[in-house]
């Protein structure tokens, strides 16, 4: 097994562990006070104008009507089309949309490579002249690969240009922001050169993925291809360790906070969580707070002035 293959294994493991750890932190975070922000898309019949079930008389006696399809539609528009950026920051959207859409296609390319490698290992031929499935995977891989590289590359370049040239933006950029975008463009440029010169149909790349899943050796068709494998592995490992892994958090920002309008009813599971948290001891030091007491006691009454530290 080659060094690059080992790096690829490490990168996939690091990426999965880092993303899982990030998600787990948010999942494990305690129940919080309501802080939703309207419009909330699952409010059936009200989402268009930003209404909520609180508009109903005696709302606690009524059945709540959640519109899951509307929520999925909103999520789709937000994830795929970057609806929010489109409406509120068109300048950024012109680069951000191709960048993100290119990344989605690139992820699709990776999954198609994996699928192709599995089928290939099972004896199915993947090529233009193969069976329908084999040919379909062959062509989809090519379309997703090149379209993804080009869109993501142009998008990253556009974002880099925006960060470098917009005087309002520059004070908030960090060296890592520039580095990340340059890193993307370098990886994409190397990948394009590698495939246009050595592996235009991604046959060697599929072979490499097959070697990874079969734990077999792999013979690189050339130096540029090896370089592509190396830096792409590093990028896969690097992304989850940076702010670029915001896609993990976005789910929680929307579903756990912005759209979380779950009411608390007497005896509910939610109420049990809250009661449990009230047992936490407070260590805030301001004079009006009884330091060391549990929240359930602290909120009952104000600390007397005479007890002031």
């Amino acid at each position, binding site marked *: 097994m080659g060094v690059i293959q080992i790096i690829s294994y490490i990168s996939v493991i690091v990426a999965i562990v880092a993303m899982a750890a990030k998600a787990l*932190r*948010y999942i494990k*975070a*305690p129940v*919080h*006070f309501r*802080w*939703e*922000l309207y419009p909330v898309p699952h409010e059936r019949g009200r989402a268009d104008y*930003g*209404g*909520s079930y*609180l*508009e*109903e*008389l*005696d*709302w606690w006696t009524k059945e709540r009507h959640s519109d899951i399809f509307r929520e999925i539609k909103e999520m789709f528009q937000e994830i795929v089309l*970057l609806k*929010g*950026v489109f409406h*509120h*920051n068109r300048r*950024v959207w012109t680069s*951000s949309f191709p960048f993100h859409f290119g990344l989605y296609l690139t992820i699709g390319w990776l999954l198609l490579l994996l699928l192709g490698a599995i089928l290939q290992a099972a004896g199915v031929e993947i090529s233009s002249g193969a069976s329908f499935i084999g040919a379909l995977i062959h062509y989809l891989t090519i379309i997703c690969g090149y379209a993804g590289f080009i869109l993501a590359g142009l998008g990253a370049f556009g974002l880099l240009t925006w960060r470098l040239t917009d005087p309002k*933006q520059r*004070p*908030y*950029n*960090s*060296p*890592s*922001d520039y*580095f990340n975008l340059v890193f993307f463009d370098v990886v994409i440029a190397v990948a394009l050169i590698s495939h246009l010169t050595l592996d235009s149909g991604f046959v060697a790349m599929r072979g490499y993925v097959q070697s990874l899943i079969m734990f077999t050796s792999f013979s690189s068709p050339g130096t540029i291809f090896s370089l592509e494998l190396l830096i792409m592995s590093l990028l896969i490992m690097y992304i989850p360790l940076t*702010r670029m892994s915001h896609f993990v*958090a*976005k789910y*929680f*920002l*929307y579903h*756990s*906070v912005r759209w979380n*309008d779950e*009411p*608390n009813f*007497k005896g509910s599971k939610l109420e049990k969580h*809250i009661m449990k948290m009230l047992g*936490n*001891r*407070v*260590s*805030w*030091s*301001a004079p*009006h*707070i009884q330091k060391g007491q549990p929240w359930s006691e602290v*909120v*009952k*009454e*104000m600390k007397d002035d005479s007890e002031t530290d």
Partner: protein
Amino acid sequence: MTQKQTKIKDLSNNKDQLHVIEPRELPKFPYPYDDWEDPPFPEVSEAKKATKDTSLDGVLNVPVPIPETEEEKEKLVAKFLEGLRKLLSVEDNWMFLKPLMLSLENCVKCNTCAEACPMYEMSGHAEIYKPLFRSDTLRRIINKYLKPGGKLTSKFTGSDIDLNWETIARLAQMSYRCTLCRRCAQTCPMGVDNGLLAREIRKVFSQELGIVASELHEDGTVKQLKVGSSTGISPTALMDIFEFMEEDITDRTGLNIKMPFDKSGADILLVHNAGEFLSWPENAEAFAIIFEAAGLSWTLSSDLVGYDSVNYGLFYEDVQLARVTLRHAEIAKKLGVKKVVMAECGHAHKAAMAIGDRVWVDEANIPRESSLVTLEQIVMNDMIKLDPERNQFPVTLHDPCNVTRSMGIIQPQRRVIKKICPQFREMTPHGVSNYCCGGGSGFAIMQSNNFPNWRNLISGRKKFDQILRAFTREEYENKVNKYVCAPCSNCKGQIRDLLTYYDAWERAQILYGGLVELIVNAMTDVPEGFIEWELH
């Protein structure tokens, strides 16, 4: 802008005042204020400047004492960092930890939030009022000083900030230059909430360092819990007020209404912002007239805190927030009412209904409802007789942020107003996209130093601009009386100040008031002219 663009590093490196407010640089108003010239911005007195930090923008509302010795400076920094550690701990901040972590860790710094912020826009794009400027200061401090290896990676990750007492004092001031309206959060593609971060900064200062605007704490929640109301109204004084209101109702309408209070087993406990009793008693009177005419079973409370729905804890910390709202819950439980109805006060709605939803637990979990919903039922079901022709004047509606953006109560007030006001027109934008009145997050009650000038000049500027644009040139030229309906006490306080500052009653015949006043003004069982066309 003629001023040099302020950078975050200036917070710690630049000893001069970072931003100077130049009224000439602020955006202009439309007709009939196209020739308006703002007066020079007043400075804080030299005596105050000597003891309290004003180095952000020369404005003083949260009093951060200037440390005198090196030891005091170091202590301030250490204590602030200690507060930040608590802010990030489950034990001390479970109630907001998840939203806080998510907003701290996932901003992509695209500045989309900037253009949504009325403060940034109407200050002539002053950098220090940009939502990202404030939140990124907090983010950089946490990343550099609290995260493992933060100092080592700070230059690369953009967390390069020096932490000294000036940084901390200016961060405190910055957290009080945001009305927590959350308009910025609405436009954030990631869902990051800069309004939440501003409140979390205020929380550290209050719960750890004891630094907080006195109008919110000592004269706010502390007074409310001790005396009964942040206005200073005690239960005894309340009886006199009820008596006055009963007489006033009779004088205005000829009706004899006895203000019901502490009626056990009533269907509804109605809770007003006690500011109404002092500044706008006609609002509380109008509620009584409507509820009596509709035949509702309702009561007020004369119990300590029970007659004041105000909860300024919402604006600066969780301890006082919980203490006040739990007091409301206990009173509702004691009276055995079926529900608590929040009168026209936006932040009280949010404190009791949205935040309170996860505080009023167990036996204290008494249902709560917006009065806008209760009123809608009364008006739309013809439970009272109304003649819209009595409201034959231009009316526009202000949307309180806490009721609309934070709670999604949009249509009930519109259905009412459309039924009773033939000349109703919306502001642009409105509903969930509204602009804050400029008095949000407690600003409306902060009357000390030069803060009211800042509030009228900058934080309320967008709302005044919106109000002006809601009416036509013809209506201005014909000197038609115009009404801004603001169903929220704090918003009314701010709009009153704006109309006074800009002389808008004399100059443009613009008056303000609540929703219930419009309803009673249209009631045929009441003599015409409940709304008195004079600014107060």
